[in-house]
């Protein structure tokens, strides 16, 4: 079988091959299965590869043989972050406490993707309950960065990012609470999208921080991200925060965009190579007529601190359900309280325990006003900053991360250092705005650098337009 035709495929190229009869879905699945078998023992991107993938591909080929019209993602093999439920498959969230938890229903995104012809290849590794920026917090071992296996792939969707970057899947799903799609996309040199809050249903996503969580695609091209989003997006009765996008006025041509750059926000702690790549990207865009404007986001400097109050507060509440009674593993203590203490102490990993304790602290009597309530007010102030900025500009640009991928173990014992990897990505979660990371260069060691675009709510189309424009420069 000639497999070169499948190397680093995009959805469009795949559909062209499939529709023309040049390739079959089973061949494509076999291509990925062979690659996973070869590379996954080193990378640990997948926690499980589904036996069902080949049969699902055969079904896609059967439909084609019967002359049925191809659907939007016909035969597209997708890797799924292991905090998104697929009925009948384990959904572990990379936690010991859910290691044998079998999903009782499909996540809405899974149902929609399957309805569009997608094939699920397997479930990918993550930081436990999506808490982390390196995928080192998985109960099932870290994932390695395919570009340099001594380094982290980013996180928490590190398994999904590594799978796409190493060509072990055509696209992958991740979830983004503070940057968990965009940061690993940047570290692995691919595209990662966090949609507008409310654009994509979280029904069937194992919740981390519900006011911030969004599901998003990790892909090799901007067009792929747009295609996957189009299938997943829209109102879902099972997630009351979802809505259909409002009607938008006609957008201007990309060359007429005004793009805001909040330099005051990201000047500190930026690696020189990241700064250089970012500046070059800005220059390239400016040369095509895009107007670059300096903007101020006065509250942005408090975004990470705000995030590290709201996220653990919500996480400590969301994770209270893992008590050994209703889900997952259970340990027995001397009485009911002992059951809880043993089950949760044993089943939750170190970072999860840390964030539960932190969340319990910021919500406790006497500290609630100083931390949680204040953080919620700052979240609002940050949203106002962005709203004001978007009266002057069409999009906002920042680097995705302050540094390139760091070494495995380098930040494991310093949680604050680890949290700083989310510095530029958390504002989009706190404000609910859509944001995309796309590759914009490499450092001297060949490690990828990401460029982040942020748009007004529901205007993913602007992200796609400017990102595509940039890609063609």
């Amino acid at each position, binding site marked *: 079988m000639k497999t070169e035709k499948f190397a680093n495929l995009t959805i469009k190229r795949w559909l062209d091959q499939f529709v023309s009869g040049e390739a079959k879905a089973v061949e494509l699945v076999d291509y990925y299965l062979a690659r996973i078998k070869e590379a996954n023992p080193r990378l640990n991107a997948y926690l499980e590869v589904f036996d069902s993938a080949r049969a699902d591909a055969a079904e896609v080929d059967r439909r084609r043989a019967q002359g049925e019209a191809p659907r939007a993602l016909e035969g597209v093999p997708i890797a799924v972050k292991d905090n998104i439920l697929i*009925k009948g498959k384990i959904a572990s969230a990379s936690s010991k406490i859910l290691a044998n*938890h*079998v999903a*009782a*229903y499909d996540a809405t995104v899974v149902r929609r993707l399957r309805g569009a012809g997608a094939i699920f290849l397997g479930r990918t590794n993550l930081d436990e309950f999506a808490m982390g920026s390196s995928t080192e917090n998985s109960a099932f071992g870290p994932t390695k960065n395919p570009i340099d296996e001594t380094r982290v792939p980013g996180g928490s969707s590190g398994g999904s990012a590594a799978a796409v970057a190493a060509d072990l899947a055509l696209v992958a799903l991740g979830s983004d609470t503070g940057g968990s799609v965009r940061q690993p996309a940047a570290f692995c040199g691919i595209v990662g999208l966090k949609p507008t*809050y*409310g654009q994509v249903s979280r029904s069937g996503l194992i919740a981390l921080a519900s*006011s911030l969580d969004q599901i998003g695609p990790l892909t090799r091209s901007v067009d792929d991200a747009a295609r996957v989003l189009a299938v997943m997006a829209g*109102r879902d009765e099972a997630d*009351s*925060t*979802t*809505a259909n996008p409002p009607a938008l006025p006609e957008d201007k041509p990309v060359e007429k965009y005004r793009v805001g750059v909040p330099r005051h926000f990201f000047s500190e702690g930026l690696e020189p190579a990241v700064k250089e790549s970012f500046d070059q990207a800005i220059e390239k865009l400016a040369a095509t007529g895009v107007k670059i404007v300096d903007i101020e986001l006065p509250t942005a400097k*408090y975004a990470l*601190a*705000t995030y*590290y*109050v709201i996220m653990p507060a919500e996480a400590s509440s969301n994770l209270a359900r893992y008590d050994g*009674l*209703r*889900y*997952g593993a*259970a340990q027995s203590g001397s*009485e*009911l*309280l002992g*059951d*809880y*203490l*043993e089950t*949760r*102490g*044993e089943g*939750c990993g*170190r970072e999860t*325990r*840390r964030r*539960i*304790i*932190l*969340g*319990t*602290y910021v919500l*406790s009597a006497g500290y609630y*006003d*100083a*931390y949680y309530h*204040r*953080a*919620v*007010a*700052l*979240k*609002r*102030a940050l949203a*106002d900053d962005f709203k004001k900025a978007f009266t002057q500009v069409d999009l906002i640009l920042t680097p995705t991360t302050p540094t390139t991928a760091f070494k495995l173990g380098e930040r494991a014992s310093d*949680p*604050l250092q680890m*949290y700083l990897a989310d510095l530029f990505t958390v504002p989009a979660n706190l404000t*609910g705005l859509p944001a995309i990371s796309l590759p914009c260069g490499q450092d001297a060691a060949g490690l990828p650098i990401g460029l982040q675009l942020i748009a007004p709510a529901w205007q993913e189309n602007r992200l796609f337009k400017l990102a595509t424009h940039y890609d063609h420069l």
Partner: protein
Amino acid sequence: MIEEKDIDRLALLARLKLDAAEKAVLTKDIGSILGYVDQLAAAPLATDLATAPAIDPLTLNNLRADEPVSVAEEGLLQTKATDKAGYLKVKAIFAERS
């Protein structure tokens, strides 16, 4: 300044059993994270905290019609090994004192 006895209390509230070594590490880690987060106290806020909305106005809340829906009960119960005839088996909440 957070102390180990605070971690003890938080761990009990959060229903987490922690060993002595981890308590020491957590006291240091949480102290350092709170040290960073404390900058929020200095952040200027245009809105008075007392009048700031308790519910985040960014969060949509489009509720569905209030009608019963199937929740795939069988599948959900199968996720627990301790179910018996549709019930979850748990320890008694009250125990007799001897």
